[in-house]
């Protein structure tokens, strides 16, 4: 961003306001409302969409004459018949613009001055506060380094102190005339050696056991995906519902990974990454979101310059790398947990909305599953309108609850620990 002095910024702002309020008395507000109501469905000011971008409109074709523009807006098909410029646009965009016979010359003026105002606002240098907020770099293990260095320093200090201590002792012994054998250096001292080997044994044993238990599990697995697709941008900042893309989680065993056409529902229109914060991969390298969207277009076979001729059936699937993998001998169904059990995705998958690259949050061990089944209470209350009627068959439990013998039912009580629930 261009560094600019506050005074010059004020000046440009001032010039900008003069520009807006000068000349014809039009409120940009009117223009905005009209533009959004009628035109924004197809036209963006800066980007070509269903129709061309409308910035610098008056410099193209016949549009510096607002009467011509009005005529066009009233009846594009009739205007096109006698105007080669718009016929050319039609061959490029493929459809004929909707007529708006009710708009007046004043409306058109208002729309154009709104567009010009937006263009000027975009071109004037932005203040520092309007830039992208909330940049953050992942602090890769810097904490661990700090702890390591601190403990190292402490260990060295302890060693030095011990040496100083023994030296002082020797000095005082010399002074008092007591003769002692030359002290053994610490690395030949049996106590030290025993101490260090016990520590090595404990630490080594801990890591060995942990490694052995972890065989076949992949907690923290975070592969590099073919497209740097960020859940933080989509599900976090832009609040897209998980089920928009993972709809299967509601009605099947698999949560389902969205196909390319689902991405293109939005990315047909969103072809740049500019509103979100800067993105970094786990090694701290900056990611160019727009280039990543271009990768998506390659898979989809989509040409943003010629969006009307896109053929979705020519798209190639993206080979995402699967992260969560239960062994084949375990059965797990999303529907049972998400829809029936009303368990939040975050319980098992962690704060996905804060992750750029997905990583496996849970260890997916049997102990992890079984623990949750022991602790999770199920909603046993049902009546004719709500609740799960299936649980009505557990008459004994209902009687026990009424009699006050039990206060809640967990998944364990309805067979959640039976081996064949998960293994068959």
């Amino acid at each position, binding site marked *: 961003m261009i560094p600019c002095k506050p005074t010059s910024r004020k000046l440009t702002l001032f010039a900008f306001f003069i520009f807006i309020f000068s000349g014809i008395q039009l409120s940009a507000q009117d223009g*905005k409302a009209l533009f959004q109501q009628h035109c924004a*469905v197809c036209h963006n000011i*800066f980007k070509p969409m*269903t129709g061309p971008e409308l910035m610098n409109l008056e410099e193209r074709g016949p549009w510096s004459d607002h009467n011509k523009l009005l005529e066009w807006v009233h009846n594009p098909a009739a205007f096109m018949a006698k105007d080669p410029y718009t016929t050319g646009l039609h061959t490029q965009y493929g459809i004929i613009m909707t007529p708006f016979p009710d708009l007046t010359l004043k409306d058109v003026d208002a729309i154009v001055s709104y567009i010009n105002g937006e263009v000027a606002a975009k071109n004037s240098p932005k203040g520092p506060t309007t830039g992208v907020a909330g940049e953050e770099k992942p602090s890769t*293990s810097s904490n661990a380094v700090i702890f390591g260095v601190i403990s190292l320093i402490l260990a060295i200090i302890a060693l030095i102190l011990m040496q100083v201590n023994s030296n002082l002792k020797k000095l005082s012994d010399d002074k008092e005339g007591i003769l002692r054998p030359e002290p053994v250096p610490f690395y030949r001292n049996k106590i030290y050696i025993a101490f260090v080997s016990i520590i090595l044994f404990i630490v080594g044993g801990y890591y060995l056991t942990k490694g052995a238990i972890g065989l076949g599990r992949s907690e923290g*697995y975070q592969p*590099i995906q073919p497209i740097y697709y960020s859940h933080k941008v989509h599900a976090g900042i832009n609040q897209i519902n998980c089920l928009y893309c993972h709809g299967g989680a509601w009605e099947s065993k698999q949560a389902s990974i969205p196909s390319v056409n689902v991405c293109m*529902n939005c990315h047909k229109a969103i072809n740049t990454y500019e509103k979100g914060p800067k993105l970094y991969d786990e090694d701290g390298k900056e990611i160019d979101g727009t280039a990543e969207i271009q990768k998506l277009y390659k898979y989809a076979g989509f040409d943003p310059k010629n969006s009307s001729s896109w053929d979705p059936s020519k798209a190639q699937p993206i080979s995402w790398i699967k992260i969560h993998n239960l062994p084949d*001998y375990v059965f797990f169904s999303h529907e049972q947990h998400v829809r029936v059990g009303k368990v939040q995705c975050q319980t098992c998958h962690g704060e996905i909305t804060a992750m750029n690259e997905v990583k496996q949050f849970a260890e997916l061990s049997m102990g992890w599953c079984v623990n949750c089944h022991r602790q999770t209470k199920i909603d046993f209350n049902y009546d004719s309108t709500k609740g799960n009627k299936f649980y009505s068959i557990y008459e004994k439990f209902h009687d026990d609850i009424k009699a006050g013998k039990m206060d809640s039912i967990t998944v364990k009580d309805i067979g959640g620990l039976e081996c064949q629930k998960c293994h068959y």
Partner: protein
Amino acid sequence: MKKSLIILTVIITVIAVASCNRVRRTPGRTYMPDMTYSRAYESYASTDALKKEGVFYNARPVTGTMARGDEMPFPISEDKPGDTVNYFASRQVKNPLNVASIDMTEAERLYLVNCGICHGTKLDGNGPLYKGGDGPYPAKPATLVGDAKYESMPEGQMFYSATYGKNMMGSYASQLTTKERWMVIAYIKSKQVKVAVTDTTAKK
């Protein structure tokens, strides 16, 4: 001399352990993977091997069949690019569901998951992706409630747009079944009626 050597090795190991990259890029190893990997085809797995064996498989339903419990497919096919004949023909199609018996809370859920992100929770065409023109989505989604053009749009035509897409809006046929799409359209229609009614009472 010896002492400094020892101290040096300790320093090096500690730094090596501490600066070890914590990002795990490999899934790790398995010990005796009996029954860990499926011998049948798993979901998402590539089926290229089948093609090599000459087996035809494309994961789509056979043409002319439909899923159990779903509605009859939409009788109108998609327009050729640049054409609008079928788009207008779809105006005649009526909702095959009995609107009174639709579970509107489920229809609302489907709307909020699939459409609300653009068309807004209030159906005002101002969802979190558009945000009055400030959001990242550059096209204005249709103002389903509050714009006469869409209030008077027949349900069949809405269904056409939700099934095949309309200009910048994509097709929702892969995310919603025929029945679910009709449910969502019925939900939109019910909201439009409600607003129209409250408007007339306000004027009185």
